[in-house]
């Protein structure tokens, strides 16, 4: 009897495993909708399009379909994320520092922790960029000029209270200078102003330097030099302790099973490991990162603390008192 029961138990377990096993292994079994919280043509779109090409190879031969839900710098989409279907067939792009700063500064309709990110697959380091014919050859030249003429150096960047704006503020603080930040609507408009000599320089991303031959990058805020810009020093090499940029990742709606979360994270990791994908991304000036589901909590805590501090310095938020938030 005892044996029979054990046997039945084992059989039951086997049946359960057989039922669960393939279901797990077969995700995805239909096309996945990938919502980009911005309009088409931006860096979130371009990198998602690069993933799109490699997605079937690493995801059961199923396609990913890209849709756009722009508005409010992404907040429109992120505030709706958790009311979307939680079957794992809807995923959404997610960006740091956007999802950290937006809820901190205003009521954006969502909280940072509402966005369940399963993988941040790359980042674009901050960069100081000048027009190709600029008189400034090094970042030190620009800093010296700013010291002699407080406020006169202008930086074009994308949007207010954005990653670009934060970098300009950090540069001011770390180098002990005063410069003027001029926000534009999107990176494209900022690049137009930089190349047209409308501003002294640009507070933007490394990708600008790689993709626009009419510009020159003075420094990047990465931990090490970029393969696509081997001659450009990092901020740290120049004695400025700043590593930052925009991270882009993939989030899922609340209620998606842990199992599927892990699978989405794994698919993104697998695409990141694909040499052809790596090549395309690095050629474009993007830096691949491997912040998967496991590393996510630590990464987000670190980023939240970092941006909280900067936002307080900029006077965007009240200094945090114990127990609030």
């Amino acid at each position, binding site marked *: 009897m005892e044996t029979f029961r054990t046997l039945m138990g084992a059989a039951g377990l086997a049946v359960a495993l057989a039922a669960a096993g393939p279901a797990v292994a077969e995700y995805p079994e239909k096309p996945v909708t990938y919502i980009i919280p911005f*309009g088409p*043509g931006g860096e979130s779109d371009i990198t998602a399009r690069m993933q799109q090409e490699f997605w079937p190879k690493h995801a059961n031969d199923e396609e990913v379909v890209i849709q756009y839900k722009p508005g409010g710098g992404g907040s429109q989409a992120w505030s709706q994320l958790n009311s979307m279907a939680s079957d794992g067939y809807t995923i959404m792009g997610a960006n740091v520092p956007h999802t950290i700063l937006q809820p901190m500064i205003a009521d954006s309709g969502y909280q940072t922790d509402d966005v369940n990110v399963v993988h941040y697959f790359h980042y674009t380091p901050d960069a100081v960029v000048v027009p190709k014919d600029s008189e400034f050859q090094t970042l030190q030249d620009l800093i010296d000029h700013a010291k002699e003429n407080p406020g006169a150096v202008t930086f074009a960047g994308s949007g207010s209270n954005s990653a670009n704006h934060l970098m300009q503020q950090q540069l001011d603080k770390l180098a002990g200078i005063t410069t003027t930040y001029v926000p534009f609507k999107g990176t494209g408009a900022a690049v137009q102003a930089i190349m047209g000599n409308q501003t002294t320089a640009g507070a933007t991303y490394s990708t600008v330097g790689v993709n626009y031959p009419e510009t020159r990058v003075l420094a990047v805020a990465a931990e090490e030099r970029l393969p696509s810009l081997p001659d450009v020093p990092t901020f740290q090499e120049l004695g400025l302790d700043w590593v930052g940029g925009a991270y882009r990742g993939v989030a899922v709606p609340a209620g998606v099973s842990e199992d599927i979360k892990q699978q989405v994270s794994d698919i993104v990791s697998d695409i990141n490991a694909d040499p052809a994908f790596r090549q395309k991304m690095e050629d474009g000036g993007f830096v691949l990162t491997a912040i998967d589901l496991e590393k996510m909590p630590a990464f987000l805590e670190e980023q939240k603390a970092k941006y909280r501090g900067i936002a307080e310095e900029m006077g965007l938020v009240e200094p945090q008192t114990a127990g609030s938030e």
Partner: protein
Amino acid sequence: MDRLQYLFDALTPLNIALAWAGVIAGTVIGALPGLSATMAVAVLVPITFSMDPASGLIMLGAIYTGAIYGGAFAAILVNTPGTPSAIATTFDGFPMAKRGDGDLAVTLAAIASVCGGLVGALALLLLAPPLARVALAFGPVEYFWLAMLGLTLIAALSEGDLLKGLMGACFGLLLSMIGVAVVGGDVRFTLGMPQLLGGVEIVSALIGLYCIPVLIDMVSTPKAHLKVSTTPRGFRLGEALGLAWRHKVNLGRSSVIGTLVGILPGAGGSIAGLVAYSESRRTSKRSRHFGTGEPEGIMATESANNATVGGGFIPTLVLGIPGTPPDAVILGALLVQGIRTGPSLFTDQASISFTFIYGLLIATVLMLPTGLLIGRYAYKSIISLPKAVLVPTIAFMTVIGSYAIQNSAVDTVIMFTLGVVGWVLARFGFKPSPIVLGLVLGQIAEQGFVQGWLIGSATNDLVGMYFGRPLSIGIIAFIVLSLFYPLIAPRLKPRRPAPNAPETSSRKGAANAD
């Protein structure tokens, strides 16, 4: 001579088929209110991954140019600009359709669009690298003055009641401020609703302000939507060609304006159409008839907005800065294909860029037969369908269209709200155009002004910033001309009503057009 080789590369049967398919798809999409060129191009990007880069680009370019043209149908036949580019097409297109000349208007739009598209594409082919410099010379202050020039049109558009026009424009300016400000990041006029953080989406506002009042009026009056002519008149191609030939200067000037404005990223087809319209009106002998169904008005806007297609590709391909939202999508597709834009695209990768440009020229020419056939079909359906079918169909399209722009139900609610507001305001004599102008130009003007102020303050030269730059002075001169010309003109040449006016057979039809 090398370049001619690329013409033959572009002329493969596959490329021609792709260009034609693109033009047809684009024209249909553009004709449906709310379905935009950006969306059409974005949906088809994955298909091009598996294609040869040049063929993929040709198809994307063809869809884009077709969609800009298709916008004219909705503007002429339903008084709803399918895209912001077609705003000024409604001014004369709808009055023409209203009095039974819709077929002529659609054919004229096709001829003008082909003409403008060719000028823009030829500029891209022959003059792209030098013209791209124009985009770089344009700074924030120039954008501010350009938007001001656009706003001076309110005076022209609100004939009879300037005060109401100005009030409408102010309402539009206020609408443009809703949401998170690009410059400064302030949250304005959201009434505490996170849904409004993204602001008022321009195309959904267009659909609401123009289309909903038309629908309500269609339901509330027993008259036919458009006057039906008793005799079938075909395409009226000969008549349209005759008109186009008579106004070739207008066509040429408007095409050049469209190309130049198209080169400026962010300015777009709406400004191009409006500037061309006002220039055409200012110089025309028949300027009194503008706004009441004047063929010259349609020719000006339609040639200008299609010229922005070629113009917009100039900064996109030479500088990597997208001239318009559809250009941004195409630029993204290029990067995914591993193609780097920049001056080298015209040398190292000349086979791709020139094949594409020739493809665009071919697509533009194909627009004529395609547009005539689709236009005729659209006109016939609009005049023959009973209102009981027409109204629900258009209403359904407005809902789908306003949702589809950003996949957002918020936009549909905004569309409907503005539609009702627009209808109520129309009862009191306010027209939708000044409101839309305020909305479209408000953002450009505000950003340009504040950016100019920041840069001017940093360099301690505010006056020089706004009034000292050569391009700015040029635009300011145009503003002054446009504002004061109506006052000076009567003294220069005393006006008489045009002696014979076959082109404007009835002013009565136009009086209740808006």
